[in-house]
C-alpha cells in the first residue's frame, strides 16, 4: 500500500510551486507516468497540481458565461480521469490536458446556449499562469450525486472519507474490495454522463 499523502500537504505543494513551464511539464510528466502504473499517491499529487492550473484556465472563460468555474474544473477533472488512457507516454502532458479542458469548457458553455471558439494554444498558455486562484463554490456534483443509486452513493461517500484504501472502505461497507472498486468506477462514469446530459442550472 502506498503511503498516503494528506491533502493539505499536497495542496501546499501546489501553492508554493512556481516553476517555469518546462520545469512544470517535467514534473507533470513524471507524475503522470507513475499514475498510469496505478500509483494513487502520485496521481493525487498530479490532480492537485492540475487543479491549480485548471482554475486559471477555466475561471475567466466560465465567468464570462455566467458559469461557476469550480463546477467546470470538476467536470474537467472527471474527464481527465476517465480518459487518462488517451495520454501517450513520452508526449507532453500540458497539450493533452489543454485539449480535454478545452473540449469540456466548450461543452459546458454550449449547454448554456453559447457557442464559442477557444484556441487550444490559449488554453495551454493559461495552464502556465502563475497565480493560485481560490477554490470557488461548486454545486453540480453534489446535486448529481443524489441521482446515483443508494449503493453507489454509499461507496462514493465512504471512499471520499477513507481515501484510496479500498480495503477500509470495503470492510466498512461489508463488500469485497473488488466490488468497491467496480462500484466506484461505475459511479464516476455515471457522474460524467450526468454532467454531459444535464444543462447547468442557475
Amino acid at each position: 500500500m502506498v503511503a498516503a499523502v494528506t491533502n493539505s500537504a499536497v495542496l501546499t505543494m501546489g501553492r508554493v510551486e512556481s516553476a517555469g513551464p518546462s520545469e512544470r511539464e517535467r514534473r507533470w510528466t513524471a507524475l503522470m507516468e507513475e499514475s498510469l502504473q496505478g500509483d494513487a499517491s502520485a496521481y493525487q499529487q498530479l490532480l492537485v497540481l492540475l487543479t491549480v492550473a485548471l482554475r486559471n484556465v477555466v475561471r475567466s472563460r466560465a465567468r464570462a458565461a455566467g458559469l461557476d468555474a469550480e463546477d467546470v474544473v470538476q467536470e474537467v477533472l472527471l474527464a481527465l480521469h476517465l480518459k487518462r488512457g488517451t495520454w501517450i507516454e513520452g508526449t507532453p502532458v500540458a497539450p493533452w490536458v489543454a485539449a480535454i479542458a478545452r473540449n469540456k469548457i466548450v461543452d459546458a458553455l454550449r449547454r448554456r446556449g453559447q457557442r464559442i471558439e477557444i484556441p487550444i494554444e490559449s488554453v495551454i498558455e493559461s495552464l502556465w499562469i502563475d497565480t493560485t486562484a481560490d477554490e470557488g463554490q461548486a454545486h453540480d456534483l453534489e446535486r448529481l450525486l443524489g441521482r446515483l443509486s443508494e449503493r453507489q452513493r454509499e461507496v462514493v461517500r465512504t471512499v471520499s472519507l477513507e481515501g484510496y484504501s479500498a480495503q477500509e472502505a470495503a470492510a466498512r461497507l461489508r463488500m469485497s474490495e473488488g466490488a468497491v472498486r467496480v462500484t466506484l468506477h461505475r459511479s464516476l462514469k455515471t457522474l460524467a454522463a450526468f454532467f454531459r446530459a444535464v444543462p447547468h442550472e442557475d
Partner: protein
Amino acid sequence: MKTETLIRLLAADNTQPVTPIGRSLAAAFTMGGSVSVLLFVLTMHPRADITAALYTPRFVSKLLICLSLAGAAAILLIRAARPLPSRRLSIIAIPLLLLIVAIVIELSVMPASTWLPRLIGRNARHCLSLIPLLSLAPAASVLIALTRGAPLRPALAGAAAGLVAGGFGAVLYGLTCPDDSPLFVGTWYTLAIGAVATASAWVGNRLLRW
C-alpha cells in the same frame, strides 16, 4: 462537493495500471478480426485458383489496396481516438492513390470494349453483402473500445473504425472473390467499404461523445 474530495475519489479509482488507448484498440481489433476470420473459414472458401492468382498483378494489387486501406485507417484511428487536433489525416489518401494508379494502368492496357464488363464483374452482389458482413465484428469491437478514447471528432473516429474493419473485411472477401479488375474493386469494394465507414461514422457520432 469540494474539489479536494473529488480528487480523493479519483485517486481511489487509480490503483491499477491503466491500459493505453492504442492497446485497447489493438486488442479489440484482434478479437473482432478473429470472429471474421472464423466466419470466413466456416462459411466461405478461398477461390479455387488462389495459388495461381497469387502470381497475377491484379489479384495482388487488389489485396494490397485493401491491406493498405486497413493499415492507413489504423493510423488514422489511433490519432482520431485522442483529444488532440491530429495532423496528417491525409494518410488515408495512400490506398486511394494506389487504387487510382491501378485503375489508370487497367484502362491503359485493356481495350475500351472490355471496361464495362470488367466493372460489372460477376459478383457485385456478393461483394456488397459479404464485405459488410465480414466487417461487422471488427467494426463493433473497435467502436466499443473507442468509448474509452476521447475523440475530438467522434464521427471521424467512427469512420476510421469502419475503414479499418472494412479494409480487413475486404481482404478476407478478396480471397474468395474472382473479380480482380481494379475497375471492379474501385466500384464495388469502394461502395461496400464506404457503406461500412458511413454506418460506423453514424454510430460513432452518437456513441463516442464524452
